[in-house]
């Protein structure tokens, strides 16, 4: 087919073979549709501003012809590619062009979701009731009873459903601004298609939102007809399933307003916790491995975090690793904290130097893993049934009681922190941990006072009873 048109390249340099004819079969609707798009782009003066996304299908080579920016991606994904484009070049004009296999089948959800989001692009949907490129297979839009290479007995609606009416489906969505179904089967219909295509592009020029135009299009080759016969099939058969009409035009209405997000600086967002840069090795700091364990909700993870934060503030190497996935069974939670003077190897701990256990399952599980010389501290009310390994010091500690007596019954974890400090197991001054504890309640300042009371009471108790 020979097409000369404004908005087309004067010669089709990207195409092999003849440089003035398109690759489309005689009577194919794609060439006409692309010509209408090209002329509209030229008339609206938007070729410099337009990025056109080609589909995979017979129209994969729109970029041979359309004189604007061109992008070609995977089969079915033109809408998703356009959704990505409009988000990074919101002031430009983005056009996506898809066939009925491309959009109606493999890429339907991407198109549907783009329409539902109201992504600001012009979306042209070419419905020829079959897959052209791959040899005339059945498309979602194939008519009931229509014979194709994959429906040789005719499309059986019992097993393959009714022709998919994309305009009617998209018309259920709130955000599309414009939805119309047109046809290029004859010159009268082409004039209407021309207007619809123009309108969709104007909506883009004005930045008004998502515009969808379905275009019924003849495919003589796969409809097994000459140009006239294929056009008649479109007008007579296809239009019965896919009536031509304007479904909506909301281009005169005000679009909804986005939620305003206040601009912030990177420094504000990535707020630093500590001064200074990379951590140096500290040969005097011995490596200690801590395991904190209990029921979820007992504050086990936060107890580990307060200690990790204090050590990190002091410029030590620290890792904090929560129990995770298969390790997290029966409502128990645990975390491993390693504090070291040198780069830390494994953040997971097989043998904790210090075990803190707040419930029985954790005590039973982890106590046997504590190596000789290690210390285990557990909530006093938990019955100790396991025997401690040789050389392991075991301290029951009334954490819950101290917390309750000091008016913060949920702060048993903080009581254990006080105990650890006092026993010298954290190798850090109490003052550092007190500060880390306060920092940990930055978002809940009301809890600071009670927790500090528990912390100090627990230190006192540990000093009196354990040392």
């Amino acid at each position, binding site marked *: 087919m020979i097409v000369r048109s404004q908005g087309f390249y004067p010669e089709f340099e*990207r195409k*092999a073979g003849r440089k003035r004819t398109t690759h489309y079969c005689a009577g194919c609707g794609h060439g006409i549709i692309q010509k209408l798009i090209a002329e509209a782009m030229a008339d609206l003066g938007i070729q*410099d*501003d337009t*990025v056109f*996304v080609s589909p995979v299908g017979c129209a994969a*080579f729109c*970029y041979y012809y359309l004189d604007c*920016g*061109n*992008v*070609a*991606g*995977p089969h079915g*994904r033109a809408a*998703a*590619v356009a*959704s*990505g*484009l409009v*988000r*990074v*070049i919101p002031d*430009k004009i*983005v056009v996506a062009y898809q066939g009925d296999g491309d959009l109606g089948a493999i890429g339907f*959800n*991407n198109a549907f*979701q783009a329409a539902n989001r109201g992504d600001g692009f012009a979306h042209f949907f070419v419905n020829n009731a079959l897959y052209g490129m791959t040899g005339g297979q059945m498309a979602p839009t194939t008519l009931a009873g229509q014979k194709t290479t994959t429906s040789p007995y005719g499309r059986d609606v019992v097993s393959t459903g009714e022709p998919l009416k994309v305009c009617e489906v998209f018309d259920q969505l709130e955000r599309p601004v414009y939805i119309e179904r047109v046809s290029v089967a004859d010159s009268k219909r082409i004039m209407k298609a021309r207007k619809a295509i123009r309108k969709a592009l104007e909506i883009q020029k004005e930045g008004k939102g998502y515009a969808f135009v379905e275009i019924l299009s003849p495919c003589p080759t796969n409809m097994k007809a000459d140009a006239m016969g294929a056009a008649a099939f479109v007008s007579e058969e296809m239009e019965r399933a896919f009536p031509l009409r304007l479904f909506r035009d909301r281009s005169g209405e005000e679009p909804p307003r986005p939620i305003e*997000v*206040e*601009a912030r600086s990177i420094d504000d*967002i*990535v*707020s*630093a*916790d*500590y001064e*200074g*840069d*990379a*951590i140096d090795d500290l040969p005097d700091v011995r490596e200690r491995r801590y395991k904190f364990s209990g029921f979820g909700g007992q504050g086990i993870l936060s107890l580990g*975090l307060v200690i*990790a*934060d204090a050590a*990190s503030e002091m410029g030590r190497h*620290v*890792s*904090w*690793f*929560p129990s*995770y*996935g*298969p390790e997290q069974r029966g409502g128990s939670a645990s975390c491993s904290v390693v504090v070291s003077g040198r*780069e*830390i*190897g*494994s*953040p*997971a701990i*097989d043998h904790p130097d210090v075990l803190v256990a707040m419930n029985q399952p954790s005590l039973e599980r982890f106590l046997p893993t504590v190596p000789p010389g290690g210390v285990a501290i557990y909530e006093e009310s938990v019955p100790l049934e396991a025997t401690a390994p040789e050389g392991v010091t075991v301290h029951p500690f009334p954490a819950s009681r101290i917390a309750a007596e000091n008016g913060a019954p949920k702060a048993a974890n903080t009581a254990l922190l006080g105990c650890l400090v006092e026993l010298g197991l954290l190798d850090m001054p109490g003052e550092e941990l007190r500060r880390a504890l306060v920092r940990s309640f930055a978002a809940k300042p009301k809890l600071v006072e009670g927790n500090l009371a528990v912390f100090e009471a627990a230190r006192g108790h540990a000093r009196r009873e354990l040392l």
Partner: protein
Amino acid sequence: MRKFAKGNEAVTIGAIYAGCDAYFGYPITPASEIAHTAAEYFPPLGKEFLQAECETAAINMMYGAASAGKLSMTASSGPGISLMQEGMSYLAGAQLPAVVVDVMRTGPGLGNIGPEQGDYNMAVKGGGHGNYRSIVLAPNSVQEMCDLTVRCFELALRYRNPALLLADAVLGQMMESLTIPQGVMEREDPSDWCVRGDPDTRENLICSIYLEPDLQERHNWMLQDKYESMQKEAMSESYRCEDAELLLTAYGSCARICRSAVDALRDEGLRAGLFRPISLYPFPREELNRAAAGKEVLVVELSNGQYRDDVRLHLDACDKRLELANRMGGNMISVDEVLGRARAMLEGSS
């Protein structure tokens, strides 16, 4: 300046300092905190965040953003990364920069959310169709989750190729001190290749179609030359290797476990070292051979020998014993297990 941060958050911080323009992604454990932090941090910085309808959409949105010369990213885990493979191939074929983060969980199928390294082949061999490669970097700390994210963007842009940060559930969930990068990465003007709806780029074309076999072949050779030229970007770390008799090798969180094992073996007077590839593609081939020269090798991984096969492939001579210690299913390999295997090898050889 430092921050105490989770590995997943460190990725988002890295992306911010790399100047990433947009995040497109679909939620999946154990990668979701990357989306959560990007959703919170990107909009106030004027960057785009969009939760896509699926991973296929996300990778194609990235294709669109990259076509316009912008930097975009996504983060996911095995099932989602599988869905993105077609898109990765198209990104590579069309020579577009994009960064994909895989916080590996277990498989095959749905698996569970524990750590595994079973996506090695999919990541390193180019899991999609055709003759392409992704740049693959494997962090082993919260700091590297950030720094190698920046590096992924840098390399993706330099080579106009997708880059993958291959992390795992341990690295995503753990917290460590993070030294915050200084200043946002600078980048070159993409005007000569991108298509962003202006007169400068109107003539450009983003596509991966070459109907003529000779042209497609030329394109393929050009890509192969490009991949070859990436070799100079190989990164690795050798730890206590010089006088070692036994070389442990592992990447990602496994390398952390091996580091502890090496220290413990050295404390026992046993001479072990660790070779850790930081880039998995390009693979630090020379460095591995240097580290492994004359030593027996114990490969440690959370997969079925996928990494071991590559170690074999890249060793010029493989006349010494090479063994595999591995776990799967969300079980981490313990330092004890590695020690047991290493001691047995060291004793067996003396």
